[in-house]
């Protein structure tokens, strides 16, 4: 049976998707044969550049965020697979500059492996790089070492905030410090309702019974806290936000950035209804939402579910979050 997807050759998904992406956004980005997505109007060379890497299949992430105010280069792997070290090294070489490179890696085995190898080689070539690894998934529970916590949609907030800092002309040390401050104050929890189809193999990424959902499931079907009956939007919002608040230690009076990132098939309608539930929960606890984003930033094909992200904000982080950006997937004026 054919997959219910609009594709041509399942082995050419990434190339064709990047081709279409470059055609649709040729005014902002270009795609090289090594699958580097770069800006067509490069950032001035005296500013810190941002490089990231990750598998395809999560559109608009990651490459949708290449552009003014966010990323300089994104290295694209195959569907759900890290790109190899040679391409990442090439990206770091292209990003090389005196101001230095901020290298953002999501904590997934392949990405870390590939990123570290490329980083080692690049540093041996004298490229000035600071690495930041995002690992803000709290599904594994409190006390889990950073190395065992996955990077989810938090990377996008980090691209935005660190990208704005870089665009503002801050030094690599400053940009990295800002990125780490955000990194240490953010958390994400995912929930899945319906599985997605792997677009190359046609297989379901995981199974979930008709009357169940699963909180904590990762963006490739990695197990979460176990299935539960389907809960209402308000209950789901409260359970998830309660855990996030605990994880980042948010207290009454704190100011949060909240992101509800749709996984694919979950509608914007649902996300707004959940957002309403999040607001109710936080109101009860005296915590303020000072900034938010509701929509699809990092998807998992047509999976139903979403990722809920929260970060404690200070004035500087908030200003950077609100600073202008202009990328294929996101523009702030």
């Amino acid at each position, binding site marked *: 049976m054919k997959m219910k997807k609009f594709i041509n050759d399942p082995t050419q998904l990434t190339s064709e998707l990047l081709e279409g992406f470059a055609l649709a956004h040729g005014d902002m980005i270009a795609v090289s044969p090594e699958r580097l997505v770069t800006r067509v109007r490069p950032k001035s060379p005296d500013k810190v550049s941002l490089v990231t890497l990750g598998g395809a299949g999560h559109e608009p992430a990651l490459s949708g965020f290449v552009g003014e105010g966010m990323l300089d280069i994104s290295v694209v792997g195959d569907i759900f697979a890290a790109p190899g070290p040679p391409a990442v090294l090439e990206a770091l070489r292209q990003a090389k500059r005196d101001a230095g490179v901020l290298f953002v890696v999501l904590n997934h085995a392949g990405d870390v492996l*590939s990123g570290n190898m490329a980083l080692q080689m690049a540093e041996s070539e004298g490229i000035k790089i600071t690495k930041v690894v995002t690992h803000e998934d709290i599904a594994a529970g409190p006390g889990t070492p950073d190395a065992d916590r996955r990077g989810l949609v938090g990377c996008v907030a980090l691209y935005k905030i660190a990208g704005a800092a870089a665009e503002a002309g801050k030094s690599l040390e400053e940009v990295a410090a800002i990125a780490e401050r955000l990194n240490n104050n953010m958390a994400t929890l995912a929930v899945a309702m319906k599985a997605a189809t792997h677009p190359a193999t046609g297989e379901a990424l995981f199974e979930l019974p008709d009357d169940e959902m699963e909180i904590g499931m990762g963006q490739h079907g990695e197990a979460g806290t176990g299935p539960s009956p389907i809960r209402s939007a308000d209950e789901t919002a409260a359970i998830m936000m309660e855990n996030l608040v605990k994880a980042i230690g948010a207290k009454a009076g704190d100011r949060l950035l909240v992101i509800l990132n749709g996984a694919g098939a979950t509608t914007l309608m649902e996300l707004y209804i959940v957002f309403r539930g999040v607001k109710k929960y936080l109101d009860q606890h005296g915590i303020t939402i000072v900034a938010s984003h509701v929509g699809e930033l990092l998807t998992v094909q047509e999976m139903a579910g979403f990722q809920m992200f929260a970060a404690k904000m200070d004035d500087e982080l908030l200003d950077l979050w609100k600073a202008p950006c202009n990328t294929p997937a996101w523009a702030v004026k």
Partner: protein
Amino acid sequence: MIGTTGTPHMKDTVNPSQVTAMLRTAAGQIRARHQLLTDLDSVTGDGDHGTAMLRSMDALEQTMDAMPEAELKEVLAKSGWAVMSAAGGSTGPLLGTFFIGMGASLGEAGQLDGAALSAMIRRGVTEMQKHTQARIGDKTMMDALLPAVATLEQHDESTPPARLLQLAAESAALGAEQTKDMLAKFGRARNLGDRVLGHADPGATSMALILAGFAEALNES
């Protein structure tokens, strides 16, 4: 096979073209079993390991085809790099490093005795270990490779290359088999908890096949 092979000298060393034969035979082993690798990764991971290994082997052989005159050292370095480019995920970087490490152990052209062959494979694994913390029992490639290395280390120069690789391949196969009883501590399988019990690790299975290919090449020649 012992006794049917050529001169005593032939039994004690291998030449560079035999090493490329080892690599090609390893590729053949993977090609013959890629569906098994995919099936294993479908249970314990994301189902792309068979494809990743096929692409790696394509890259390996294409690189070798493209530089028939080159030094083995250089061929392995280029192949490793090509594997890294061809296969994403965990396989490309680790397997690529393995080949690059193998190449790095070699001097100028010439015959390799048992010690050199052992050093070559051990160096491949040592380089991999610079990038992975995985140890025996973590349900990864290392569960095949580390027992093979231990076996190589137990033998001195007196063991003929073909025999040496045969023993290493057997240790790797046994190690891969034992991953069935392990919970995963690395890679995607980590997140699956005890759902992976009873299934061999795809990466360990691949590495056992590669070593089986190495041994097969020498034992046939």
